[in-house]
Every structure is written in structure tokens, then in C-alpha cells.
């Protein structure tokens, strides 16, 4: 348990006072447009393209199937080399018709290998193994199920959930925070999940509480989600266990960022370079919790997710339940197609999402939102101006950084200074970028700078390692040399001391003398 928390901090935690974080932006929500229509399940597309590269936290999964093979719904079709990242599963039953490299939704913009499945329309499940007695199950069993079900953070960061849960099991957490404060404009998939599947969420919360042995669970929602509060409250009455509570937090971007949410709920800061685990907290997205309920209680792996399809370029914005691998243009069609002059297609929100080069890319586990933006929404192609150090970026930075200084350091490659000024603590929320009057792509610079710092750190580690090895080798050689010398010296000493030795020495001297005498006798 987290004894390291001061009593005051624990009291504050229990008192549920809402704290503040530095900076942030009050953005227009644009959420209502996609919340008016109920969730709808999208039938399997003609072809599903399941990318083996689902997230950036590991290499692509290795395919477990071959072209021509029949698969059942929920059957593993890809497995990761890293053990705790789990599997990729077949989203529906059908035939694998190819393994091919295709455009996928990935920040790199590169194509990736996909398993192409032709659905047979029968939706035949593989054998599911629900953990019936999950309320008394061993946390390790639950963690293992979360791993094999391929659960990742569904808030967009897609970090393998099993890794987080195992960390929590190893180090102990007192509070589990379920993040329902999706603060980015347009995205409403978590809100719709909480509205329409509150029981599943609460059960998921309890499953995760069991898996992490947390004392309590906080579901954080935004203060503008009044409907959600009511729905969750009534669901708590039917399937809650008394340890789950709802806390409403102010809607301000990036409130839903893990570090900001921790600060708002507890008044504490996650240590630089650390994790909420350092405070005895674990943060997971509400979607992840619902998926955990599916994985444990029903035995279903992660093969679908809720996707918000929104933006002024979509005819009828809404939230859809889509199978992984569904091409994005099928979702758009489901929403009445494009409308107006769509200039950019974004996966994720307008602040942190990335632009997709094509809508042929399939839905992945990270796809919380598909945003079609028209020319009116976008930053007009204003030329970049020099930084005038106005400090507006500093005012909005939730990490209390000085982006104006970091920008100078990164562009001038002053890496030590950048590190000292906290570049690695940048959460890439884009607030600075948004308010910059000089239109400097600050967040892009910082992403690049962080990459450089990470590379430098690993190079330094490699260099340090090589140096240690070299030094150790030198020392070993030195030691061997010394011990050899010692051994010889010791032998000499022993020879001199022992009577046997003395005799041998005398004999040898005698022999030498004799041979010399013979030599002398022979000489002319």
C-alpha cells in the first residue's frame, strides 16, 4: 500500500476537493453534435483490414494466420513479441484472404501489414472462457486475462493495460482513477459509453479494482456531463459495490490528461519522469474499464470500440460501435458521407490527433474519433513568424513549462538546457501551439526534441555500458596480471623457504658451477 502519501494528502484525497492545474484552454466543446443520436453498431464491412501494428508501444505483432485460413470471431490472429502486450484478434468470423501492406492509421503515416479478412456474416465466436467467479478470482488471473484479451488504453494513448495492471499489482495502489473526462473538443465516445453502457463500466471498474487491489475507484467525468452523472448514479445503485464513486471535474483542456487529472483530483503532482503509480494511483480510461468487463466477465477480447465520427465535414455526426479493421470510409458513409469542403481527416481530437492521408485506413484500437474538418475549421496557412516571446504559451502550459525558451533551445539544439527546462515533461497537448501568435508549430518541435532526448539518453546508456565493459575488462586484465605476478612471487618465496626448495636451489647452483668449470677446463 502507498504509505508514502502524507496523511494530509490522504485526507485531501478522501475529502474530494477539486484542485486546479496550471494553464489550459477553455475550448468550444463541439460534442453535442455527435451525442444526440444513440450508439449504433456497424455491421461488418465487405473486407476488414486488421493492422498488426496497433500501437506505438511495441513492434508490430507477428501474424498467427495464413492466407486462405478460416478464422473465428475473437480468435488470436497476431501476437506481440513483447509478452505483456497481448494479442490482436479476429474481429469477426470469416476467411483470411491476404496478408498485405496497406495504409493504416499510425502517426508515422507509413503503411503497415494488415490481415485482410472476408467476413462470412455468421459472427461465429471462438470458444469464450468467461471468468465466472471474477469477484473472488486471483488478481494475477485477471491480469493475465486482460493481457490475452489484448486490452490497451482506449483513450488514445493505447498503452497496454496489462502492463499498467501488473505495475499496480507489484507496487500497490490505493485509488483507481477511471478517466471519463475526455476534454478534447468533438470526441464523445466516452460520454456515449457512460450514457449507454453504465452497468458495463461499473462492472469493469469493479473487475479492475479486484485486479489491482485498489481500495476505491473514482470515475472522473466533466461538469458538463449532467446526463452521465444521473445514469451512472442509478447504475451504481444496481451494480455498484460501494467503493466506486463519481467525481465531476471542470471542463478545461487538457483536464483529461493523466497528469492533470491526478492533480485536479488529489492536488498532487506525478513526479517528473514518473507515473501515477508513484503516488499509489492508477489511471485508466473508462472505455478500457468497459473492455475489461467484456474480457473478464464475458471472455470477449478487444475486437471493437466506440468511435466518434464528427466534425463540420460529416453529414450526420454520431458515435458508432465499429469492429477493428473497418475501413474509415465505411464509418463516414454510415454517417451520411462527407459534407462541404473537407480539407483534413484527423484520427483523434483536433488538439492532439494526427492527420490521415486516406480514409481507406482501418479502425484501430487507438481510433477514438474520426474528425473531418473543412477549410473553415483549419488554421489558414499563415506563414510562421519569429517568436516574439509574448509568453502566451507559458500562460497556458499545463506542465508549467516555458515553451518559448524550449523552442529556442530545441531549434538551437541546446539539448542539455532543454532537458533542464523540462522538455521531457511536455505532454504534447498543443495548448502552446494553439495560442502562439507567431504560428510556430511548437508541439511538433517538442515531439521532435523529445525524440532527440530519448535517443541521446539511449546512446549515452550504450556508451556508458561500453565504457563500463571496457573499464571492467581493463581491471580484469590488471587483476589477472597481478595475480599471476603474485603467484610467481609466491612460488619463488616458497622455493627459497622450504628445505626441499633449498636443496633444489643448491643442486641447481652446483650444476651450474660444474658446467661452467667444464667449460673453463675445455677452453684453450
Amino acid at each position, binding site marked *: 500500500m502507498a504509505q508514502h502519501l502524507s496523511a494530509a494528502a490522504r485526507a485531501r484525497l478522501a475529502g474530494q476537493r477539486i484542485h486546479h492545474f496550471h494553464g489550459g484552454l477553455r475550448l468550444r466543446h463541439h460534442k453535442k453534435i455527435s451525442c444526440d443520436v444513440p450508439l449504433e453498431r456497424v455491421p461488418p464491412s465487405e473486407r476488414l483490414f486488421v493492422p498488426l501494428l496497433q500501437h506505438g508501444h511495441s513492434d508490430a505483432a507477428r501474424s498467427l494466420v495464413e492466407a486462405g485460413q478460416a478464422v473465428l470471431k475473437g480468435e488470436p490472429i497476431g501476437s506481440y513479441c513483447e509478452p505483456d502486450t497481448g494479442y490482436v484478434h479476429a474481429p469477426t468470423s470469416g476467411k483470411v484472404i491476404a496478408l498485405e501492406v496497406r495504409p493504416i492509421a499510425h502517426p508515422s503515416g507509413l503503411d503497415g501489414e494488415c490481415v485482410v479478412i472476408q467476413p462470412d456474416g455468421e459472427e461465429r465466436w471462438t470458444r469464450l472462457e468467461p471468468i465466472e467467479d471474477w469477484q473472488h478470482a486471483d488478481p494475477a488471473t485477471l491480469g493475465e486475462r486482460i493481457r490475452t484479451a489484448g486490452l490497451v488504453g482506449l483513450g488514445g494513448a493505447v498503452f497496454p493495460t496489462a502492463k499498467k495492471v501488473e505495475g499496480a499489482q507489484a507496487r500497490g495502489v490505493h485509488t483507481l482513477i477511471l478517466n471519463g473526462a475526455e476534454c478534447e473538443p468533438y470526441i464523445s465516445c466516452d460520454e456515449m459509453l457512460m450514457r449507454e453502457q453504465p452497468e458495463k463500466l461499473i462492472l469493469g471498474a469493479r473487475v479492475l479494482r479486484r485486479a489491482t487491489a485498489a481500495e476505491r475507484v473514482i470515475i472522473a467525468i466533466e461538469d458538463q456531463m449532467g446526463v452521465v452523472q444521473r445514469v451512472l448514479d442509478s447504475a451504481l445503485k444496481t451494480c455498484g459495490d460501494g467503493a466506486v464513486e463519481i467525481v465531476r471535474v471542470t471542463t478545461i483542456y487538457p483536464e483529461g490528461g493523466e497528469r492533470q487529472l491526478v492533480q485536479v483530483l488529489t492536488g498532487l503532482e506525478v513526479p517528473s519522469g*514518473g507515473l501515477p503509480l508513484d503516488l499509489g494511483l492508477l489511471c485508466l480510461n473508462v472505455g478500457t474499464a468497459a473492455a475489461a468487463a467484456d474480457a473478464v466477465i464475458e471472455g470477449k477480447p478487444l475486437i471493437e470500440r466506440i468511435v466518434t465520427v464528427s466534425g463540420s465535414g460529416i453529414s450526420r455526426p454520431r458515435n458508432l460501435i465499429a469492429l477493428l479493421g473497418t475501413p474509415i470510409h465505411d464509418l463516414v458513409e454510415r454517417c451520411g458521407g462527407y459534407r462541404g469542403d473537407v480539407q483534413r481527416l484527423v484520427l483523434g481530437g483536433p488538439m492532439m490527433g494526427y492527420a490521415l492521408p486516406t480514409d481507406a485506413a482501418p479502425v484501430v484500437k487507438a481510433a477514438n474519433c474520426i474528425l473531418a474538418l473543412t477549410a473553415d475549421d483549419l*488554421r489558414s496557412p499563415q506563414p510562421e513568424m519569429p517568436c516574439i516571446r509574448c509568453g502566451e504559451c507559458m500562460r497556458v502550459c499545463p506542465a508549467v513549462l516555458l515553451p518559448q525558451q524550449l523552442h529556442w533551445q530545441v531549434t538551437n539544439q541546446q539539448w542539455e538546457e532543454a532537458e533542464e527546462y523540462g522538455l521531457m515533461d511536455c505532454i504534447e497537448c498543443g495548448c502552446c501551439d*494553439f495560442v502562439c501568435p507567431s504560428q510556430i508549430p511548437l508541439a511538433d518541435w517538442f515531439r521532435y526534441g523529445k525524440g532527440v532526448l530519448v535517443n541521446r539518453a539511449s546512446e549515452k546508456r550504450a556508451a556508458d555500458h561500453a565504457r563500463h565493459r571496457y573499464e571492467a575488462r581493463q581491471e580484469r586484465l590488471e587483476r589477472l596480471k597481478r595475480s599471476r605476478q603474485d603467484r610467481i612471487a609466491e612460488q619463488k618465496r616458497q622455493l627459497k623457504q622450504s628445505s626441499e626448495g633449498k636443496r633444489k636451489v643448491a643442486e641447481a647452483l652446483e650444476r651450474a658451477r660444474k658446467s661452467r668449470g667444464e667449460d673453463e677446463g675445455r677452453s684453450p
Partner: protein
Amino acid sequence: MSRDFAIGGAPHFFPPVTVQRVMRDVLLAMLPGIAAYCWCFGPGLLLQIVLAVGFALAFEAVMLKLRGQNLRLFLSDFSAVVTAVLFALCLPPLAPWWIACIGMLFAIVIAKHLFGGLGYNVFNPAMVGYVVCLISFPRVMTAWLPPLSLADVPITFLDSLAAIFTGALPAGLGWDAVTQATPLDTLKTGVDQGRIVSEIRRAPIFGDFGGLGWEWIANWFAVGGFWLMWRRVISWHVPAAMIGTVIALGLIAYLADPGSNPSPLQHVFSGAIILGAFFIATDPVTGCTSSRGRLWFGVGVGAITLAIRRWGGYPDGVAFAVLIMNMAAPLIDRYTRPRHYGEGKQKHE
């Protein structure tokens, strides 16, 4: 059918603010003060502004061309115009036309572009131009007019035009008759002569707190300054720290020796304290960048200004104080970096 899209970096939003808007807001915020100035001292200032802006844009265009920069983009950012207007506000209304030329030459060419242009200059360009002129041409730079209400002969627009371009005053008038020492100057000479402040203040050029007319100009600049704060173009740190320091130090001096020190409000409402606090020391490029740094920057400007007023060779010292603090800004920034989120918090392994 699938469709392809152009890509671009996040955030995918229309930018709310531009450099042009920032500079335009600064210009708009100076309008009330400028209007008050003309009301009190005649239309000479407008001519100085036109001259300074003209020279500034000309020098800016030449330098941009020489440096191979985008002419249209940088000329339309209004930054040179802001420099020019601030410079013109420092000039006596009837200063000859070539003052603006020399001032802008130093401000735009040397202080701004030779240091790297917008965003890279170390010193406040307007203050560099002003200080160069003040040191080089002390006589013309101190030929101030009395408020219109005290002037024997009002100087009209055409009179101003003639005086600025030909140096000729209306028939029968000499420069000595037209110009008059500023309140700050009067105060300084008076104190140096051993007179006491309350006695000096009986002169008609003094108003309720500061100089007659000057105090109202300061008020209107303050109004513009508050508007800039409300627009989030400037932060409160520099003005608050600078004016606060002037009041605090002024009060100490006043309480210690009211005979030779004016009241703190007299300090605040005369000379360039208000203009400097809201429009000059807040220049983001040459000032400090963190909030705590800005506080120290304001404190420094306020303290140095008072020191110059009290012991220096010039009646006012805002320009010198700003330039000195410009030099100190990087050092202050170095020592005032805020603790960022999570910094220094213990990790528990």
C-alpha cells in the same frame, strides 16, 4: 470509394491570435493616450508619429530586402509601426524632422535588424532610438512645449508643420518663448538649487499629482494598458511591479525627506512611468519571459528610473532603465525559471 487527404500537424484548429493582432492591439491601446496628448499639447505629436512611422517602414523595407526576407509579411506585422509610435511619443512635439530619421535609423536598422530582426533584438528599439537622439541632440530633445492652457500663443497645426520642417517659428516668437521645462525638469533643477518640493510645485505647470496635462495623458495610457491586459496582450506583472516599486521607493524617500523628494504619486504621474509600465517595459522580445522574471524586470525598471530621477543627469530615466534591464533580462530569466509540473517530486521505486 476511398478518398485521399492532405496532412498537417496538430492542432487542427484556426489560430485565434496572430502577431499582427498583438501589434494592432498595442497600437489601438495607445490611441486614448495619443488623443489626450494632442488635446493637451497640440497636434505636433501627430506629425512626429507620421514622420517616425514613415521612416520606420522605409528602413524596415530596406533592411528586409537586404536580408532577403518576406517584405509583405513583415511590413504588415505592425511591429515597426509600434516602435515608431513609441519613439514619437518620446519626442518634443516640435522636434525637427531629421530627429525621427536618425532615431528610426538606430531603432530599426541597428537595434532591430542588425540583431536579427523581429524577435531577436536585445534592446528595445524605440528606446535605443530615443536615447541616441537624447544624448546626441540634447537641446532639441528637451525643447518641450507647455500645455496649451498655459501657452501664451497656441501653436497651430501649420505652425507645427513649419517648425518641424524648417525650424521657423511663427513671426515674433523665439524658441525660448515657446518652449518650457517639463515638470520633472523643473523639479530636478529646483531641488538641485536647494528649494523644497512643495514650493517648487506651486508653479503652474504642476497639476494635482504630476505635471499639468501629463497626468491626464498618463491616465489615458493606463486605460489603454488595462485594455491590453484584458485582451491578454500583456500580463499584469511588469506594470504592477514597476508602478509598485516606484510607489514603494518613492514613498520611502518622501517620508524620509519630503523637502527634496516629490510624493510617490507625483513620480507615477509625471514623465514616462505609466507609458513605460504598460507599453515599453512590457515589450516581450526584450524583456523577461517568465512571470517571476517579469516581476523582477518591472522592479528593476522602476528602481533604476527613480535612481536616475534622483541622482542622475536626466530628469526622467525610464528609457535608460529599460535598456539597462534589457541587458539583465537573460540573467533574470535564468534564475526565475518556474518549477515545472512534477519537477523535484520524489519517485518511489
